[in-house]
């Protein structure tokens, strides 16, 4: 399968130069590289510029609500764990509206891959501050600058017990593809927080801003097997911004500990011959 096979009749509607294009290409590359059958891949999308990708990728798609791509993805995985399940969202989606689902999916180690298009901005609503906007950044809703400090998705995922925590950059498409491949292969919850410049509304976190700062953790010999070190690395943001895998550990995925699907996925279990006689007798 070629990545182009995953195209749909609809072309992306993002602004020219948007960071989402490279993420889109990387996702198709990763699915093709892993030779996944598109009919056995489900992507659950949130709402925002990132969520609009539901029209441009030819797998099964579930375009949920703002902040909600994760719970349906978890539900899909639990009832049919033979499928590859990916969730796609933006920073407002994942860390604002859907913050609660995010932390609980981490600790549950649900075997889904969470691709967060993080442009430090609400863009489809034309430019308001997001949970990851830097302090002081002016936006339409914060003309005097954001008062809060930005949320740190990497540190949050680590605290919430995620088993695969990574950061990519949409300016490094090959590296991003590789991260997505590893994240999808990981058995358990994987976060790929993706730095994605919004060329229309974010005048601070631009492509040049990131090109000057990002470096590849793995190229510098960083081993993602130590949570304390990962926490320390997660704090690094300024002149140098690390991308790559911060942390990875082996832990049973949520569905693998569900006794009811030990033999076969729930969706393939027959509904014939359900017998509640014993249950009714217990109520006598």
């Amino acid at each position, binding site marked *: 399968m070629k990545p182009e096979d995953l195209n*749909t*009749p*609809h072309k992306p509607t993002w602004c020219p130069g948007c960071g989402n294009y490279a993420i889109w290409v990387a996702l198709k590359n990763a699915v093709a590289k892993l030779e996944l*059958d*598109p*009919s*056995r891949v*489900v992507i*659950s999308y949130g*709402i925002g510029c990132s969520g*609009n990708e*539901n*029209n441009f990728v*030819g*797998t*099964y*798609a*579930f*375009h*949920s*609500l703002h902040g*909600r791509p*994760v*719970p*349906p*993805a*978890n*539900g*899909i995985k*639990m*009832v*049919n764990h*033979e*499928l590859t399940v990916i969730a796609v969202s933006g920073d407002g989606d994942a860390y604002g509206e859907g913050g*609660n*689902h995010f*932390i*609980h999916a981490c600790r549950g180690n649900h075997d889904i891959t969470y691709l967060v298009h993080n442009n430090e901005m609400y863009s489809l609503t034309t430019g308001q501050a997001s949970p990851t906007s830097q302090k002081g950044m002016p936006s339409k809703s914060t003309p005097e600058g954001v008062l809060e400090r930005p949320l740190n998705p990497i540190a949050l995922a680590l605290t919430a017990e995620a088993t695969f925590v990574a950061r990519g950059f949409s300016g490094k498409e090959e590296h991003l593809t590789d991260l997505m491949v590893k994240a999808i292969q990981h058995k358990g919850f994987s976060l790929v927080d993706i730095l994605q410049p919004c060329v229309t509304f974010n005048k601070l976190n631009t492509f040049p801003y990131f090109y000057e700062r990002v470096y590849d953790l793995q190229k510098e010999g960083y081993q993602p097997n130590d949570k304390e070190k990962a926490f320390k690395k997660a704090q690094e943001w300024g002149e140098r911004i690390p991308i790559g895998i911060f942390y990875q550990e082996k832990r049973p995925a949520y569905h693998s500990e*569900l*006794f*009811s*699907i030990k033999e076969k996925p*729930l*969706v393939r*279990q027959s*509904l014939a011959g*359900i*017998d*509640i*006689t*014993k*249950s*009714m*007798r217990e*109520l*006598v």
Partner: protein
Amino acid sequence: MKQNSISINNLNWKIAGEAGYGIKASGLMFAKACARGGLQIFDYSEYPSLIRGGHNTYQVNVSEEEVFSPQSEVNLLVALNQDTIDFHKDELSNQAGVIYEQEDKKIEITSLKKNNCQLFPVPLSRLAKENGGKEIMRNSVALGASFALLNYDFKYLQSVIQDSFQKKGKEVIDLNVKIAEAGFNYVSQNFDVAKYPYQLKHLKSSPRMVLTGNEAIALGAIQAGCKFISAYPMTPATPILHYLASQQKNHNLIVKQTEDEISAITMAIGANYAGVRAMTCTSGGGFSLMVEGLGLAGMTETPLVIAEVQRPGPATGLPTWTEQADLRFLIHAAQGEFPRIIIAPGDVEESFYATQSAFNLAEKYQLPVFILSDKFLAESNKSQEFFDPKIIKIERGALLTNTQLQKMRKYRRYAFAKSGISPRSIPGQKGGIFNANSDEHDQFGYSSEDAENRARMMEKRLGKLDQVALEIPDPILYGPAKADLTLIAWGSTKGPIIEAMKLFEKNRIRVNFLHVMYVYPFPAEKVKEVIRKAKKMVLIENNATAQLGSLIREFTGIEIDRKLLKFSGRPFYPSEIYQYLTDNFKK
């Protein structure tokens, strides 16, 4: 009751005390012991929203024929503390019995002397301790004492104790039986039980369950092939979650407690989308959070069953009490216009079958279906014949097979079918790839803002409701076809009304009753037909604004101005319905 007449198998027993005294467990044991002797029961419990302290009550209405509600008059009261006497002395019937803690000097019974009742002081705690138990086990003493007084064979209580403590082992079983027996023997030896005019006598019958509306919903879900439930705890819906969790190994279910209600509903939608039957359950407050998810199911045409077990609102409201005030809320919940079905069962049996039907309707019409219950129905136990699993078969609706999909050149999930129902594929099926899209979408599911497409999609989705209306059962008219008074109600008020009708019948007043179970889409034709024939109509609802009344007006143009509304958090008693109607509608 006259001094010397004996009332057999017609009893209202009540036990009360602080939360943490084990009131609920012993009440259920009393109910089951009656049911095992072939008697019919309906129980009702009241408790505040806390774990220790407060006042808990549990009452069991016992009869030879099927009973559908509690009654207000108490014939045998078990008082574990002074509050029980103070709060319930006015509920005592003539010649009622009161069993109370003999050695608790704080229990003041002088107030009872005015009542024409019989007092049975029993050393409940001492008997528990003397027989090797703890003070809390005085409940078992009280159960034994109650059945001795009622002249009822001890073996039924013994068998219930054996089954209730089965998991705790023989030692615990033997101890509890011994303690209950001590209470039984104490009363037999110290009182002339023949003078107490209420008795229970076992009858021959096939075994009956003792279960709540919640358990009936959960059993209905299992029988309907529901394999997945995601929910967040909220009284009074939580027992559905508990029961399914207790049954997950027997029936291979996935039961997921989620981080919040938004997750619960959207996860259940994801599970349905992926091809299994899935549900969620909550009360009004939790459903407030789920509202956006309801719209998601509506827009993506994903089947979904939601059990909404009402409690009085708004906000936290009265967490452990009852009300029927969410009907309008469910009809209108979520932005935009899309179809949904609301089924409000009136009793335990209907809760079971309605849940099975809910899953069939959800898949057939690819839309959300509510089971709308309330605390009163959901948490009251009733004796019940075994359900017949064969009556309603699993019908999964238009699910495409792999072969069907392979024959299609280009699959359109949301094809403009004449019926409005476009066949579904599920993820994993080759050739079935589609976009389940919360945005307005074209026939493939791709986002579309085209005006004509939008209008056609709206017609397609909303049109399904017209077909639902043709299929759903009509409201049932209980009682004679011709009557002087016609009552109309929905959901759980059915129980007290059916019981009130027994009183009318006894007094030869011709009353009939239209019960609306399939509330939405609203069965306008049948309701209109009954109203046209009625001499006088009275609306009975457990809410403040007569929500069914407003639906009748909306869909039939008829205003029913006689209303009996109760919104104190308490259910109706049959006697108050009877009293109100006889007071207000004398010939």
